[in-house]
């Protein structure tokens, strides 16, 4: 690498860094990516007491602009940084590896590049770090986030649209959730009781059940079963909460705080009531209920009711269920469980949540599992060591052993006597005819993180039912947003999102913004390539924009752009061809545009606006000079020239052009400009008998001879005419077309009115056309009449001639009347009229 080149790369690289960050050494290498060799510039940078190796990808070689270099790796030189120069099993002995963090980067270097200095600097820095053993690498964050982490391959290859601001924002806020999330303890009291169809009597006091904790719980979830199982209730599928029970519950809760019923959900015999501290009401939202009947015909004598709610940032779910009864029916109970799990849905607006989609779930109820024992029921009753019986509990078997139900749910250790079945009003086992065996029918399960069970008990003293109530107290840690921290993170996330949006602006680079076309001449094609590249990590859509409101064209009409819009994927480039062709319609315009151009000062011919969708606009300035030609000058200017057009400056020509009123000098008593005369004279002598001398299609419009004739005319050459009759004919038309004003200065409107009358048309020619134009017009008509005379040989009839000449001479929007106008002059005798007019001075 030459020193100059190295120096210029160094300069570009240095621009990438900030004040206080010193580039120590740069080294060119390459990486092999797929089948490609990709150039890298490895740069070692030091800032304060730390240093890092940057690997840059190069979009354009040699890199000149900042955008030519893209960071593809930033490796802090710390304890994990290793440079491995051993020629391993690699494909080249010029291979070396850099290990940093958990990553390994393999590079290759060019044999003629001396790597010693690079190695030396790195060794020294590694040494320095190991001595100090710390360094502040914060300064690297600025480089890491924008160039590395934000690149998404799917976006770069157009597979995915770039993330929009809002989704990036949500993603970022979610990602940083731990920073503003705290866990607050909440005490949850779950209780279940099969009340065996008893209505709460006045003297019933539930405090013994519900107010058994020292502190007041935050939330109560109280599930009752068999509050009413009358046929009527079942048939009606009663869903109205039972307010007698609710009132009783509210009386029974802990007296240490003010509570309110949050919600109750009832389905036939089952009811679940959620009671919370009034002070918590504002922390709870999205309260929804659900019920599932599983009994006969789903009538709801069995099934479950549930409540879903959001407490701060967590979703909680409470389910009270009553599953199928009888010892042998444990499979039905399993199925009931499955059905509730499957069918219970909580609908909140458009969002539906099932049971398992909650952070914490408490499932309570009369689950009705029995003790599966071979010994007879009487023996169970007399058995005192209940904990031994527990291993025979059907639910223990289904849950813990077989993992058939309540999978991933937990249950606390049961330390209470079976809660079923007692003789109501006593603590005695069932002595009825049915003689039911005791069982732990009434249970409490939970699932979720950060839940601790404090106790799990039954209450013997409540004796109105054949079941004993059960309760359990939990401490749960509820995810809560710390508003202060959240505000700070929110602000930072906004900054990140701003940065993301700025960094993810589609960018396009243009090789040059000044396109100099040099000297332009009439009727020649000039082309320049505009190389555009997408060096950003997003697909780029571009288009040229129009500059002013009036016109919709993106450039002057003598400029053509090969691709007015397009798309570039990451890493792609394309060449946009810009052509300039000055023809008869633009010759006079470009001369006017450039008339004030001073020598050696480039004047923009046009400025193109290259717009990158959702990104910046780039201005491309088109420069050029114009070599004046007779094409595009006024006809009277042509009359005034007393030397070849090449001997005039553009400014001089324009001054003459602007001074149209100035009389044609006396020395020029010609009837028409030299150029028109020469063409007509030549055609008169050589062209009258040529078939298709003029064609409607203008077959010779782009003939290569046009330029030769241009030069011949412009230089006042004394050589032989370099063209053919056909090209001379084309030139004649071009001279009229290129002139800034039409030869025939009669308006379309005037012709529309008078074109029926030859005399009126003659008057128009006399009155509306300047003398010079009149003379040229009649001169041309006389010549055209000669062509028309040879109609049988050359095939040019008066209609064809009118059709070809009307647009060139009159330049009306619609040629209908101008053609008729010309026809009048071609088909009538105009000798006398012409003679008089041509004599005039």
């Amino acid at each position, binding site marked *: 690498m030459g020193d100059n080149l190295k120096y210029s790369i160094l300069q570009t690289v240095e621009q990438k860094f900030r004040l206080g960050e010193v580039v120590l050494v740069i080294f060119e290498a390459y990486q092999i990516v797929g089948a490609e060799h990709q150039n890298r510039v490895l740069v070692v940078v030091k800032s304060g007491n730390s240093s890092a190796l940057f690997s840059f990808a190069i979009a354009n070689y040699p890199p000149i602009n900042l955008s030519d270099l893209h960071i593809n790796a930033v490796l802090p030189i710390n304890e994990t940084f290793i440079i491995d120069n051993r020629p391993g099993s690699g494909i080249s002995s010029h291979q070396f590896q850099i290990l940093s963090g958990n990553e390994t980067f393999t590079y290759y270097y060019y044999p003629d590049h001396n790597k010693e200095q690079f190695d030396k600097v790195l060794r020294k820095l590694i040494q320095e770090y190991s001595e100090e053993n710390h360094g502040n690498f914060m300064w690297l964050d600025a480089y890491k986030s924008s160039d590395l982490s934000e690149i998404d391959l799917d976006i770069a290859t157009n597979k995915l649209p770039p993330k929009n601001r809002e989704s990036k*924002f949500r993603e970022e806020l979610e990602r940083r959730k731990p920073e503003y999330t705290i866990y607050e303890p909440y005490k949850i009291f779950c209780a279940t009781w099969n009340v065996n169809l008893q209505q709460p009597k006045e003297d019933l006091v539930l405090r013994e059940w519900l107010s058994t904790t020292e502190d007041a719980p935050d939330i109560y979830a109280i599930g009752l079963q068999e509050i009413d199982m009358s046929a009527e209730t079942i048939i009606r599928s009663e869903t109205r909460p039972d307010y007698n029970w609710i009132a009783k519950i509210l009386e029974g809760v802990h007296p240490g705080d003010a509570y309110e019923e949050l919600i109750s959900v009832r389905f036939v015999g089952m009811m679940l009531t959620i009671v919370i501290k009034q002070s918590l009401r504002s922390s709870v939202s999205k309260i929804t209920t659900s019920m599932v009947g599983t009994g006969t015909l789903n009538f709801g004598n069995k099934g479950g009711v549930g409540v879903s709610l959001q407490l701060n940032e967590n979703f909680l779910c409470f389910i009270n269920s009553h599953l199928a009864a009888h010892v042998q029916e444990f499979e039905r109970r399993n199925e009931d469980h499955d059905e509730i799990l499957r069918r219970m849905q909580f609908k909140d607006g458009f969002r539906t949540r099932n049971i398992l989609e909650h952070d914490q779930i408490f499932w309570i109820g009369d689950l009705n599992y029995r003790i599966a024992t071979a010994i007879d029921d009487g023996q169970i009753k007399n058995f005192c060591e209940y904990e031994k019986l527990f291993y025979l509990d059907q639910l223990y078997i289904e849950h813990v052993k077989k993992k058939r139900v309540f999978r991933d749910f937990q249950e606390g250790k049961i330390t209470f006597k079976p809660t079923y079945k007692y003789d109501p009003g006593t603590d005695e086992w069932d002595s009825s005819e049915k003689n039911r065996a005791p069982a732990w029918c009434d249970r409490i399960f939970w699932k979720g993180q950060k839940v601790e069970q404090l106790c799990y008990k039954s209450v013997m003293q409540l004796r109105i039912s054949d079941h004993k109530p059960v309760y359990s107290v939990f401490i749960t840690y509820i995810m809560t947003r710390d508003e202060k921290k959240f505000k700070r993170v929110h602000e930072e996330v906004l900054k990140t*999102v701003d940065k993301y949006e700025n960094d993810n602006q589609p960018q396009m680079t243009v090789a040059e913004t000044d396109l100099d076309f040099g000297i332009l001449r009439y009727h020649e094609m000039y082309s320049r390539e505009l190389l555009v590249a997408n060096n950003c990590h997003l697909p780029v859509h571009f288009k040229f924009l129009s500059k002013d409101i009036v016109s919709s064209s993106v450039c002057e009409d003598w400029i053509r752009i090969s691709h007015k819009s397009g798309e570039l994927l990451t890493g792609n480039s394309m060449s946009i061809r810009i052509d300039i062709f000055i023809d008869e319609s633009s010759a006079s315009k470009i001369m006017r545009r450039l008339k004030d151009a001073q020598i050696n000062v480039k004047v923009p011919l046009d400025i193109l606006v290259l717009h990158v969708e959702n990104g910046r606009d780039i201005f491309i300035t088109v420069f050029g000079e114009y070599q004046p030609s007779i094409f595009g000058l006024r006809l009277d200017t042509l009359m005034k020239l007393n030397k070849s057009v090449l001997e005039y400056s553009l400014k001089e020509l324009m001054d003459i052009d602007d001074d149209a009123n100035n009389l044609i000098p006396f020395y020029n008593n010609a009837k028409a400009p030299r150029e028109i005369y020469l063409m007509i004279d030549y055609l008169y002598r050589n062209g009258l008998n040529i078939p298709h001398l003029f064609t409607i299609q203008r077959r010779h419009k782009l003939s290569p001879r046009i330029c030769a004739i241009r030069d011949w005319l412009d230089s006042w050459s004394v050589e032989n005419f370099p063209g053919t009759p056909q090209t001379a004919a084309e030139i004649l038309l071009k001279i009229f077309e290129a002139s800034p004003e039409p030869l025939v200065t009669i308006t379309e409107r005037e012709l529309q009115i008078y074109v029926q009358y030859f005399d009126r048309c003659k008057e128009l020619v006399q009155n509306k056309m300047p003398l010079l134009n009149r003379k040229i017009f009649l001169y041309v008509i006389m010549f055209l009449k000669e062509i028309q005379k040879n109609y049988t040989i050359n095939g040019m009839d008066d209609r064809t001639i009118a059709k070809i000449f009307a647009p060139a001479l009159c330049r009306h929007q619609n040629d209908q009347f101008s053609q008729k106008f010309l026809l009048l002059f071609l088909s009538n005798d105009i000798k006398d009229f012409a003679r008089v007019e041509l004599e005039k001075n």
Partner: protein
Amino acid sequence: MSKKTYDLLFKLLLIGDSGVGKTCILFRFSDDAFTSTFISTIGIDFKIKTVELRGKKIKLQIWDTAGQERFHTITTSYYRGAMGIMLVYDITNEKSFENIIKWLRNIDEHANEDVERMILGNKCDMTDKRVVSKERGENIAREYGIRFMETSAKANINIEKAFSELAEAILDQTAGKENNDNQERVVVDRKNQEKSPAYSRCCTS
């Protein structure tokens, strides 16, 4: 707190002679960085930055224009749609200050009538090279009834302040309008404005 990333979108435009530091001002504001390398802006660039004013999150979309003379005609077409314009001159460059009059005229001709304007005398850290006194800046601002501030992108002086004052002025105007017109004329339509840059006809493409 709302999960929307912004409540209002304001479009601001930076104009002024070439080399006065428009890009540096924007770069300092958006990236809090400064580079002394001069790279002429050949076109129109923009950056966004969200600021919070009076409890409202305001997304500023700031357009940086090419200052070179030959682009003046083109850049004026970007004035329309701008709600605030910062006219920047360089306190070490007399000509750039004299041209403020010209830029003001450009604004009159091409920008929205109610556009908020602010004059910035940049590079105020370069005291030894100063040729335009602060008084002259203040005088011209007073004469035209425009806000004025001396700034330095390099030393990070008044950059944040300039943008937030301009944004605040627009916010005042916006609030005024909302009240007067019974909210019918909402100044910023989030959806539409988001898509189309200040450039008048680049539409939604």
